[in-house]
């Protein structure tokens, strides 16, 4: 935030008008990123300061028709899934998205999944047990259960996001979030977890529910219908 830099007054700041999470502006656009890095590093050559300069370019907008095309399709379930539990529906979604995720890994040569350290299907079971107040086994013993829960949820979000990014169309930040939270069983499961942890008397669990699970934008939009 420019207003934060104005308050802190670090010696040299390049303010950039990009979405939070994207300080270099545009993924896979080396020329754009290079202009950002050079603009920041050139501030080192200023004779006096503090310097707070604005980067002159905005991120190129996604055309509305492209954005609409980029809205991922809802995942359809076989008729025999009608009575399945939410966790079973998430497992079915994962199975259907697996081919897209495999393609994502192949195209990019990397994945941001694999941080939690357990198979995604096991993580879903862990989240569902926590959401339902049932006994659960921590899947790793070197971190606190609440950290394991956060990593499990992030793993789920990352898998879905990477899978949908491999699908045709241009995917905006908002369209990926709206699809995950509004149209998937995984989003519904995390809303259930949110409702359960929000009521917790455990300080860390409550903090997690308040801050680290559902994005504020979603809580103010889709979340108002869910909760």
């Amino acid at each position, binding site marked *: 935030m*420019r*207003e*934060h*830099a104005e*308050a*802190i*007054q670090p*010696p040299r700041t390049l303010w*950039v*008008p990009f*979405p*939070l*999470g*994207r*300080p*270099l*502006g*545009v*993924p*896979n656009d*080396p020329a754009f*990123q*290079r202009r*950002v*890095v050079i603009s*920041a*590093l*050139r501030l*080192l*050559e200023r*004779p006096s300061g*503090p310097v707070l300069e604005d980067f002159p370019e905005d991120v190129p907008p996604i055309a509305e028709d492209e954005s609409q095309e980029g809205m991922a399709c809802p995942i359809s379930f076989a008729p025999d899934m009608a009575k399945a539990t939410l966790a079973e529906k998430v497992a079915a979604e994962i199975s259907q998205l697996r081919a897209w995720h495999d393609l994502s890994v192949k195209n*990019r*040569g*990397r*994945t*941001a999944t*694999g*941080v*939690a350290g357990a198979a995604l299907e096991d993580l879903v079971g862990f989240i569902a047990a926590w959401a339902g107040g049932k006994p659960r086994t921590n899947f790793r013993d070197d*971190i*606190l259960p*609440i*950290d394991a829960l*956060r*990593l499990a949820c*992030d793993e789920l*979000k*990352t898998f879905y*996001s*990477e899978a949908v*990014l491999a699908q045709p169309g241009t*995917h905006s*930040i908002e369209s990926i979030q709206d699809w995950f939270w509004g149209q998937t069983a995984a989003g519904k499961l995390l809303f259930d977890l949110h409702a359960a942890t929000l009521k917790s008397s455990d300080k860390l669990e409550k903090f997690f529910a308040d*801050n*680290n699970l559902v*994005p*504020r*934008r979603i809580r*103010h939009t889709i979340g108002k219908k869910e909760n």
Partner: protein
Amino acid sequence: MVRLADLPEWERDHMLNKIPNLPRFGINAWVAGRPLAKRRVAIVTTAGLHLRGDRPFGQGDARSAYRVIPGNASAADIVMSQFSTNFDRSGFQQDLNIAFPIDRLRELAGDGIIGSVADFHYSFMGAGSPVNRMEPKAREVAGLLKKDKVDAVLLTPV
């Protein structure tokens, strides 16, 4: 960073409410330093990045710990365990450089625009307040950067 006017009211209020608790840099000394073409540059990010085999960021770190990212780490080995859910991660999923522009620094070094790229880079988990509780670890990292002969740091917040 982001433009305040682009945010909905509740997000704007959240961001503005942080201002009274932000530390003030409070140092007026100005260091000019060498020309950019001779500088050795490191990245310090608050994106909560680390190597795949490292322990993820967690409560046990007292939230002020950092992770070391060797300059020769491959993009496939760098992952994220930030606490915050309120910034976009799809950019990072598509391109590591969106928050950790190591390829851009290598190119700039190759083109002679900067002198060289540091052997080691550092990542903090930036969500959490008050931010000044990070100061002891930030000073520790500054000492390590000096030992690596670094004289320019690109800070990339998310």
